[in-house]
């Protein structure tokens, strides 16, 4: 199957600041592609370039078979764009906004009314056709933006943080809709902060300071992490914050994060630990992990912390990305 989106060395500089740094991408038709990354990492800049509203500084990209630098107007005919900020006309009604975009995209007059009805029903906007867009709730605004972006039945849909500030029920509704669209063959390019959303994507990439760090199938990425190292330990203890300090200073600990009442610890590369003085043979991963866990339990006890439970856990996608971001930050500091 042909790729819907291909980027080669895509770069955007604002003055001397690199917002997007030599990004390579290829996204097959019909895929849900999730782009993750912290605020200011270049997600929106990427989307704006791919939508043809921002000229790249270097590199090239093909979207729907058209070059974004040379034929941006052709790109715009085959894509839909739901921007981060609500950008429809607040003083126009739901129907008037849809009519406007229908005309701007040149939706055939014959197909228009039926398509608008379908979209209103599909996006759960029925009964609100005559309400002004500005008076809609956050979730409904988002759905209207989606409806307007779908009015010309684009092959590729870009969504920039479509669920930011939207309640969980509305988020679920939106994602169900996105899955339907993907099944119908639409390619979706979604940026998000939410890891659970990323796990629903068929392909995720993590962008940090404009660099694309990892890219792949989220399930495979998790499996890989599990198979490779399985270095995640959950510790439930009292009190929590002093334990965090102790663990961050501990020899075998790479990273610690708070998860509710528990701490998630990412251990240092375990096979390497057998060269350490405290951990001896045998060196099956599970055995080494068990030894390290006992060491940590001992360290916490010596610090006067009451350890209630300590067990190994599977990493979430969030664990993977947070530790990625940390590793990069640390490298930047050096």
């Amino acid at each position: 199957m042909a790729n819907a989106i291909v980027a080669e060395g895509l770069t955007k500089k604002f003055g001397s600041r690199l917002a997007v740094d030599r990004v390579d991408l290829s996204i097959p038709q019909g895929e849900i592609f999730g782009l993750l990354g912290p605020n200011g990492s270049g997600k929106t800049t990427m989307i704006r370039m791919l939508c043809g509203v921002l000229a790249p500084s270097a590199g090239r990209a093909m979207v729907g078979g058209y070059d974004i630098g040379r034929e941006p107007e052709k790109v715009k005919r085959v894509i839909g764009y739901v921007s981060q900020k609500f950008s429809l006309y607040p003083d126009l009604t739901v129907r008037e906004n849809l009519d406007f975009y229908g005309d701007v995209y040149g939706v055939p007059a014959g197909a228009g009314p039926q398509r608008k009805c379908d979209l209103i029903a599909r996006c759960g906007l029925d009964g609100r056709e005559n309400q002004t867009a500005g008076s809609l709730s956050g979730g409904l605004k988002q759905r209207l933006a989606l409806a307007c972006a779908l009015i010309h039945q684009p092959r590729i849909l870009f969504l920039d943080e479509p669920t930011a500030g939207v309640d969980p029920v509305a988020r679920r509704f939106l994602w169900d809709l996105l899955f339907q669209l993907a099944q119908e063959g639409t390619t979706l390019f979604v940026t998000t902060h939410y890891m659970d959303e990323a796990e629903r994507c068929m392909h995720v990439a993590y962008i940090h300071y404009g660099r694309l760090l990892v890219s792949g199938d989220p399930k495979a990425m998790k499996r890989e992490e599990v198979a490779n190292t399985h270095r995640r330990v959950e510790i439930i203890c009292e009190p929590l914050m002093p334990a965090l300090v102790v663990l961050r200073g501990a020899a075998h600990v790479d990273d610690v994060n708070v998860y509710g009442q528990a701490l998630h610890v990412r251990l240092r590369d375990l096979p390497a630990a057998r060269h350490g003085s405290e951990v001896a043979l045998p060196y099956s991963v599970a055995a080494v992990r068990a030894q390290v866990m006992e060491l940590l339990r001992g360290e916490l006890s010596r610090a006067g912390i009451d350890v209630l439970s300590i067990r190994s856990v599977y990493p979430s996608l969030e664990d993977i990305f947070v530790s990625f971001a940390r590793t990069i930050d640390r490298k930047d500091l050096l």
Partner: protein
Amino acid sequence: MRALRAVIRKEFIHIRRDPRLVGYVVVLPVIVLLLFGFALRLRVDNLTVAVCDQDRTFFSSEIKSRLQQEGGLYVTEVDAPDAVGDLIWTGKAHLGLVIPPGFSRRVADNQQTTFMLLVDGTMPTLAQAALYGARVLTDEDMADRLTLDDPDHPSPAVRKNPIRLDQTVLFNPHLRDSDFFLPGTMGIVMMLVSLALATGIVREKEQQTIEQLWATPISRLALVAGKMIPCAAVTVLDFVVALALSRWVFALPVRGSLLAVAALAALFIASVLALGTFVSVVSETQLQAHFISVFIFVVSILMSGFIFPIEAMPHWLQPVASALPMTYFLEAIRGLTLKGMPATHLLGDFAALAAFALLFGTLCTVGLKKQAA
């Protein structure tokens, strides 16, 4: 074409649903026209002259009554010559006159007398009006009155001025200020409305709705034209209202062809809207656009000949007037209404306005960038 129609329809909805715009479009123009029509007067009446009459005779009272009746001045009498200066200093009088003692005697002796006349020069317009009122002291008529009819001592033949004028004022025989101001006020009203309406593009920038538009295949021309056409339609309505008020409330004569007036208004609206839209294109916020528009508006009022003649401006500043659409509109509309000139004599003004509209319309379209750098 469909995109253009869609933008036009959308813009009309924006105008209809914005309550502030309705005030701007309906209420303000009417208020401005009525205010300017009634209030803008260059002729100053009822200025006060402080008179210290040290003569107190029939002749001196003759002078005072003539100042009042024919000079259009209000006479306040004071006792001491010093008080004349005081009244001017405090602003209670604009002009001060001291009639010296023994004036009547000198008239009888056929001798000339020098009066002291003080003028407050703070506002030159007022000073000139006051001096114009005081001219009755020295005109021929006054000389006729200040003669003693004594058969025994016939006065020498009064030396008359060798020239007597029989003047006719053309185009505005009563020199009505409203006739002078109203044609320009119609232009002011149109500028006010169109500059207020032309902020559509910068509003889309501020609301960030333009980002969504740029992600569609809409053409820049469709956007610019689609924004300008509804504004033009509304401004045309305001022009009709302004013309009707000028005609029926202030009896402004329209001696030229009404068709030419309409064509002139259309060209003027197009040029001002194009200019306003260009401001909108180069501004990042509505506030910025408003500041620039206010600047253009003020310069258009002051430097187009609306109030002050362009001829009075220093030569090196006069090109500024040629850079304002208002200048050409004023020249042409005064020609069409007051002078009844045929449109063929005003083709230069028509062409200048058309050039403005074309230039700024093009700049708007070229200045908009669908793809940011």
